[in-house]
């Protein structure tokens, strides 16, 4: 049952990504025509200038909202089944990461009515979910160190909010850099992109602090020390420091603008490093056998 909703979410997000990217490419009439000729007969219906772009975006939003709903359903079903949040292995955690990206994006789209951002962020959520579905979903039992349903659920749930908002900030920064360089008129203004990036970080930064603190709390309960320079611990500190640097840089002459946007890109690279890190640096966060 939960697998069906995951597949439904995957399909919805795949289609949403297509519509979002399409609306970006089709925003000006000329570009719409070019896509139509290149993409074959199925796209030629979209010729009336202007209309297809907003139409496509609306479909994108609708589909992304559907994807979010299916993912939410999946998380609820999975949590009911296991008794803790669906965060105990890479499969569950990746699908939840996708949920975080999507939820943060939908909140920003709702607030700022900027759909262009979806062309970057929604495919990222789709990619994360696609990655999740390549990992076997079987419910591996929890090793002793992870047997703390409350902390497992809260620690990881909070990290998903942080990662999701950082993904949105990354999307905004990427568009910022493109907009600042080629002055692409179809993109929102640099000021708005800067604000979206900042707004996302204002949510993500406190949440990331909470992730680290809850991790320290858990480490203190399970291992008897709140900080031990474990690679994942350290990587999450690096991530937090980068966003801390961003918050200061954004107020400085010579650092606001391009360099701040680059810090957001770097910050998300650190998020991905922290996230995928345990696949290669081992440490206490390896999900197989601890102790």
């Amino acid at each position, binding site marked *: 049952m939960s697998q069906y909703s995951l597949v439904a979410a995957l399909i919805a997000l795949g289609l949403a990504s297509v519509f979002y990217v399409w609306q970006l490419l089709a925003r000006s009439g000329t570009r719409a025509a070019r896509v139509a000729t290149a993409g074959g007969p199925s796209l030629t219906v979209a010729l009336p200038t202007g209309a297809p772009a907003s139409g496509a975006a609306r479909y994108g939003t609708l589909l992304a909202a559907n994807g979010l709903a299916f993912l939410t359903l999946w998380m609820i079903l999975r949590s009911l089944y296991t008794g803790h949040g669906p965060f105990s292995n890479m499969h569950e955690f990746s699908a939840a990461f996708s949920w975080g990206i999507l939820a943060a994006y939908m909140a920003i789209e709702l*607030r*700022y009515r900027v759909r262009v951002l979806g062309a970057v962020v929604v495919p990222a959520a789709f990619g994360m979910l696609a990655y999740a579905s390549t990992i076997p979903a079987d419910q*591996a*039992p929890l*090793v*002793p*160190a992870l*047997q*703390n349903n409350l902390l497992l659920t809260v620690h990881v749930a909070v990290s998903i909010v942080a990662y999701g908002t950082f993904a949105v900030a990354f999307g905004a920064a990427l568009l910022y850099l493109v907009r600042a360089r080629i002055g692409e008129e179809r993109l*929102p*203004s*640099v*000021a*708005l992109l800067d*604000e979206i990036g*900042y*707004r996302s*970080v*204002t*949510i993500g*930064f*406190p949440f990331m*602090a*909470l992730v680290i*603190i809850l991790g*320290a*709390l858990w480490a*203190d*309960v*399970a*291992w*008897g*020390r*709140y*900080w*031990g*320079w474990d*690679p994942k611990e*350290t*990587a999450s*500190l*690096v991530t937090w*420091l*980068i966003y*801390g*640097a961003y*918050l*200061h*840089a954004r*107020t*400085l002459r010579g*650092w606001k603008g391009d360099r701040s946007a680059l810090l957001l890109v770097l910050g998300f690279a*650190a998020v991905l490093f922290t996230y995928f*890190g345990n696949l290669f*640096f081992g440490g206490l966060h390896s999900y*197989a*056998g*601890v*102790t």
Partner: protein
Amino acid sequence: MTRLWQLLLSVRTALVLILLLTAVTFAGTMVIQLPANIPLGSTDHVQWLEKVRPRFGMWTDLLAMAGLFTVFRAWWYQLLVVALLLSVGACSIHRWHVITREVFHPHVRVAPALFDRPGTDAADLALDQRTAADALRRVLAGRGHRVIAEEREGRIHVYADRHRYARFGSLIGHVSLVLLLATAALGSRVGWSDDGFVVPEGSTRELALDGLSVQVTSFAAEYYPTGQPKDFRSDLVILSNGQEVSRKTIRVNDPLDHNGIRFYQSFFGPAAYLRVTDAAGRVVFEDGVALAWRAEGERPVGSVRLPEQDVTAYVIAPSAGGKGDALISPGEMRLEIYRGRSETPVRMETVAQGEDLWAAGLTFTFVREKQFTGLRVARDPTVPLIWLGSSLLVIGVTAVLCFPTRRLWALVRPSATGSRVAILTVGRRDVGQTEEIAAILSGLPRLERTSPRSADRGARAAGREDRRGGAEVEHLGRASGSPASAVER
């Protein structure tokens, strides 16, 4: 001295320090770190380097020389942290005055000329000046603002702010960082811990703290059918001068706490129950021996020293439970008996359970196989301060980032229609603030609004506004006679 102070106060300095710290912390993530329980420069340190040498090859010595295996213990890492803390501390002290003044004694009046500049948000009202000011006050208060008004030279100045106490959030967040790191430094001094406190099941061992002993009545390790570990638990009894003072079954996520000393389930391994009798048949030793170290071939090994007889016995278990161990079969133990400081054993033999070995005038009996539990025992009275600092950090950061203080200045003047209300803010407006100003103006019983800015969503003209915002900051400062008051960080 002044220049050093200025340097510490600079956000640029803080930024550079954060980025440097980020870079070296990242290096410490990429390169495996020397375990914390190995002292620098010890033989264990050298052995550890040899263990990682196959992974880093020719780079090993270079990385070691650069200190990259010991980043978090390096003096330069600590220096960076201290420098950042000094910067944070200096900024906090410096900001304290600015923030308290803005929160408790804000500047109400702004030079009226500033309200005449093109692009200022304004509304013409068909009300007299007093009534208009009251209407403005009501709208602002209704939207959660604190409002202060002053009449001067026929004009009514209005100052309003929202979430003013969030100004302290930045201060609390920064100070809590200092608190956290100071606590960690203190904890490493006053705290006590033993990472490898080993007790065989059925045995009692003395703790080097408060005259306590730990008795492990039993240990159990459970596995899932897949072979994954499921549960490790030890039944502990804490004894003080032989009297039981505490008792609990501890698990990985469930330690025992006795007066702030906490006992954590950490690791486990094989043990052997050994009995030694002398020629007269007197029992000189009877206890579990934890095989918590590793001998050649990854075989678990433990030892017993009998001082009276000047004899040391080593007990060695088969590697990996005995599968594929040519020397020792499953269920057997190898005993090696040494006399004095001699490096050559008097006797070495593999014995089965219940079998005896005669050596050095003594009888060694491997009674039976057992397990030992490895505990981490720690006492750190500073930990509550860590949670206090952490809470303050989250509260402070959330306040300043998610509930930013909004401030605005308004001027109410008589005009041809009745009165005119104009509103100024400092710095670039974001979408939320733009909407707020528009909502305030449209909330007034207005005649006609003349506002080029509130119509636009703030984004398009923002580049221009940014520069204008900078100018406002200067003017505001000069108008109030205090340059610091309007400088936004």
